């Protein structure tokens, strides 16, 4: 039961982008079109799930075993960077067009604070392995949801009569704020 709650909490109730305000860089940068958003979301979800799993293993079998909790930040970053490299290689081989459309945002997944945040939260809340995995997948799902909603709205905005001073970045930020406000409706529902 807790596994399911962790998943829903990470995906919707405590959405990483709209509640914790993590991972805003790709959120604003890739959410122009729905298909790139979906692909970016999937790539990030993949990295997040693997990161959650592998960092749990490292945390338990290396860091806690040898009493090195202070190395958490560094080892997690190394892990995430390596995973992103792997994803980059894979995408470059399997879909060059996706690779080009994601552009600089693909290697930027490494610096996505949502991923580091996810791994550190999981360590802080002392989740088990399955719970961490669920947390990672849920966070990725939440990130994808936020990205796709934003992309949908921005695609519609292309044809709307936006006042000239607000066109582009200002409008995007306003919409993001309103989305965050909307997701506040879930506040306090679950605290796992």
């Amino acid at each position: 039961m807790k596994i399911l709650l962790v998943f829903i909490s990470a995906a919707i109730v405590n959405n990483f982008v709209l509640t914790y305000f993590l991972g805003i860089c790709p959120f604003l940068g890739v959410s122009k079109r729905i298909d790139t958003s979906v692909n970016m979301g999937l790539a990030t979800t993949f990295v997040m799930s693997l990161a959650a799993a592998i960092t749990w293993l490292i945390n338990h079998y290396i860091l806690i075993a040898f009493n090195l909790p202070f190395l958490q930040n560094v080892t997690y970053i190394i892990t995430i960077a390596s995973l992103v490299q792997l994803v980059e290689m894979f995408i470059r081989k399997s879909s060059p067009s996706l690779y080009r459309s994601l552009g600089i945002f693909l290697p930027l997944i490494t610096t996505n604070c949502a991923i580091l945040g996810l791994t550190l939260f999981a360590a802080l809340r002392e989740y088990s392995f399955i719970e961490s995995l669920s947390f990672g997948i849920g966070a990725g799902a939440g990130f994808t949801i936020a990205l796709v909603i934003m992309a949908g709205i921005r695609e519609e905005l292309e044809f709307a009569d936006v006042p000239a001073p607000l066109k582009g970045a200002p409008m995007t930020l306003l919409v993001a704020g309103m989305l965050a406000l909307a997701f506040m409706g879930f506040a306090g529902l679950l605290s796992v």
Partner: protein
Amino acid sequence: METGLVISIVAMGGLGAFFAVFLTVASQKFKVEEDPMVEKIMEVLPQTNCGACGFAGCHALAEKIAAGQAPVNGCPAGGQDVADTLARIVGVESMKAKRLVAVVLCRGGNAEAKRSVVYKGDRTCAAADLTGGEKDCAYSCLGYGDCVEACNFEAMAMNENGLPVVFFDKCVGCGACARACPRDIIEMHTEDRRLFVYCRNRDKGPQAKKVCKVACIACRLCVKDCEVEGGIEIRDNLATINYELCPQDDKPTRRCPTKCILFGENERVTSASFYASGMQKVSGD
């Protein structure tokens, strides 16, 4: 304490080594066959991704050159050196790299242009353009230096007269200044062009003369003096040069009453001559 240090180093080192091996294996498995020509071209390009070539970054240009869809002198920021090296790599005759330079087409500075208002807003051209700026001429240079700010190659500066100058020796032709100017006063031209009309005023002659001493009043003297019929035309009360027809000489400049059309003016200023002459604007507006 000591053992803790050793264990940390071993743990981190071990982890790093593990990932290094893992990634090396993965990179072999996921190897992408890139055209070696593209890699060789990439080594030569400046890697600034400025976009002056018209493509999406240096890698995109490298791919196009390798495919024969872009000329070897397609990188204006790289200059003649890059063009020659690329020509050697690609194996065709090198075409002369026609460097683009920025030309500021307004000479109505503090001394020449009339002002009737005081602007107290943000001292950027983009902001001032919303209100019309301080000078009476609605087409003039606003003088707050958004162009100078945009230049990444230290090829521009503001002079004492409140106008931007382009250093002919430093400009690489990336076009950032032209894009930054809200009034489109800066144009990019190949360096062999020397004849320019340094005015953008499209008001009728008497009106133009009232707002600026060096405005184009559309008197048509340059049109008559140009050797080729149609080399210079008057469009919207402004003399416009047709660079395909008009020969590059100083004949059209001789009779201009306001001296707004000039020959060889844009090459006059280099960074050395500018800073030596002490013409730079004192900061603090």
